[in-house]
């Protein structure tokens, strides 16, 4: 972790993270400081006026298995910092499985395992010395169905991200961080007056933004979104998409989607997967307008899938 990229006091004082296994910050600044793109410096999202440089994720020969069946068959793929990468492909092609390997959630399923490397900047998250919990704090995840914790209020849902991951001593600025996470998720205006009411009382779209706020509260470097809008109506979907646009200024975003219009709207780059393999990846407009692989063309033009 390069300290200059992390003004957050929480990350600097984090004892829970395995310091010795942090990514080495190379003398030249390392890849983490590399994306000196204009928007990286202008990361003013809500109350978060802190410039934050996003991080890069790279998959190397990634294979994922459920028991003996191979669902992801050796993928090499780079998710550049400060960009939204969409993963498209028919159901069962391994999109979700691949994404779940990035924050090591794949291994939570009994009998599931992964091979190959997932590099968060230069850190291999599958390195035996790496703490899986530290990986998940750095790589947030938003799921298909909004799933706020049913016993918790709106405030507690967002705070849970911190309470579940941090020790007692670092909870001082809890309410400040809850507010900035809610602002970051574009939900603050709607819920600031009823923070103590149940999180499940919100509408579907608000619940999903609450879940995004919950992830943001932990200050992740990467956000994985597994079909985050598939349970939402078009207006709620639009709000999430606007949010993604803002969030990418400080977080690297990977979004799995079935909706190709959505990929076209939000993603800088799009990857097309088929039967566990990566068929093609490139800038979104190229994938949709002049794909090099005929299978990609058939899929994006709706001939199958």
């Amino acid at each position, binding site marked *: 972790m390069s300290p200059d990229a992390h003004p957050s006091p929480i990350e600097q004082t984090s004892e829970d993270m395995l310091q010795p296994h942090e990514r080495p910050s190379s003398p030249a600044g390392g890849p983490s400081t590399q994306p000196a793109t204009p928007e990286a410096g202008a990361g003013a999202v809500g109350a978060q006026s802190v410039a934050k440089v996003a991080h890069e994720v790279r998959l190397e020969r990634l294979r994922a298995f459920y028991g003996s069946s191979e669902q992801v068959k050796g993928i090499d793929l780079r998710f550049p910092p400060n960009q939204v990468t969409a993963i498209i492909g028919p159901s069962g092609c391994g999109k979700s499985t691949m994404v779940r390997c990035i*924050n090591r*959630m794949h291994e*939570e399923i*009994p009998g599931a395992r992964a091979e190959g490397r997932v590099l968060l900047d230069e850190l291999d998250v599958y390195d035996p010395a790496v703490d899986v*919990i*530290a*990986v*998940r*704090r*750095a790589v*947030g*995840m938003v*799921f298909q*169905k909004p*799933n706020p*914790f*049913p*016993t*918790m*209020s709106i405030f507690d849902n967002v705070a*849970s*991200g911190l*309470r*579940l*991951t941090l020790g007692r001593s670092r909870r001082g600025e809890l309410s400040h961080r809850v507010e900035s996470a809610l602002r970051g998720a574009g939900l603050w205006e709607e819920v600031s007056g009823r923070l*103590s009411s*149940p999180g499940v009382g919100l509408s579907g779209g608000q619940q999903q933004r609450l*879940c995004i706020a*919950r*992830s943001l509260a*932990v200050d992740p470097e990467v956000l994985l979104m597994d079909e985050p809008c598939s349970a939402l109506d078009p207006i709620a979907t639009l709000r999430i998409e606007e949010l993604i646009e803002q969030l990418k200024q400080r977080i690297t975003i990977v979004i799995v989607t079935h909706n190709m219009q959505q990929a076209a709207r939000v993603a800088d780059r799009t990857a097309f997967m088929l039967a566990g393999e990566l068929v093609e990846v490139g800038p979104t407009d190229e994938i949709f307008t002049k794909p090099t692989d005929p299978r990609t063309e058939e899929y994006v033009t709706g001939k199958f899938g």
Partner: protein
Amino acid sequence: MSAHGATPDRLARFAVSPRRRRADRLARGTLLAATLVALVPLVLIVYYLLVKGLGAWSWSFFTTDPTGSTFFGGSSIGGIKSAILGTLEMVALASAIAIPIGVGVALWLVEYGQPAWFANTVRFFVDVLTGVPSIVFGLFIYIVLIIGTGSTYAGYKGSLALSLLMLPVVIRSAEVILQLIPGALRESALALGAPRWKVIFRVVLPTALTGMLTGVLLAVARAAGETAPLLFTAGHTNKTSLSLGGFMNSLPYQIYSDVTSPTTEVVNRAWGAALTLVAMILILNLVARLVARRSRLA
């Protein structure tokens, strides 16, 4: 075409056939009859408890111990204070043993449960235990803690027998509820970077709390109403015993010994004690539900 304009042909095609109408009426009637039949004893039990039990209730009924001197026209047969306190103490201790262990077993089965063969073996034994007659638990404690140690009856031995009885009920009901908690909830907590124990204690358990309460209360109610496991573990005494180390009276035992008495007064005391037992369980139920609702959004 509006309904009024339908031709008779068309109406006949869309009308409910008389046969189906009959079948429907028959099915509904049968189910209603079953419900009413089941309702009869339930209503009668409550009715008799109230009519006979309330008659026995009085201030001294709750504040005096049974005297046991009824044959010689003694002034008073006494109340059921020792039985109430005995039941409260023994069931409280039994709950304190069985609920944490039972919930712990259920958590292990659902949240970890590896290796699977061992988890399935545990489930099998829990199922077997659920079906074991309650007197067998009493017998087990009798053999191990009374014959085995050459000692005598004691309240805590009754508690142990009751906790054995409660354990499988708590485990089974808690397991069912824990399995109902959506996996997505655990996943989202894990994906936040929460350690598994925090996921369990902060997310899974609070979500399951209300549901678990039902099963736990069922176990408590069952233990509170059992006579058999106490017969030769807690012994019997008319005196109030605050120490779980001594002989101990209990409501079910009091009912059991009173109801066989030739004296009407004593039989009425059994009714009063039965109503007390039911009232205690009802109050416990209400209090627990109230507490659970309060703690929902603490």
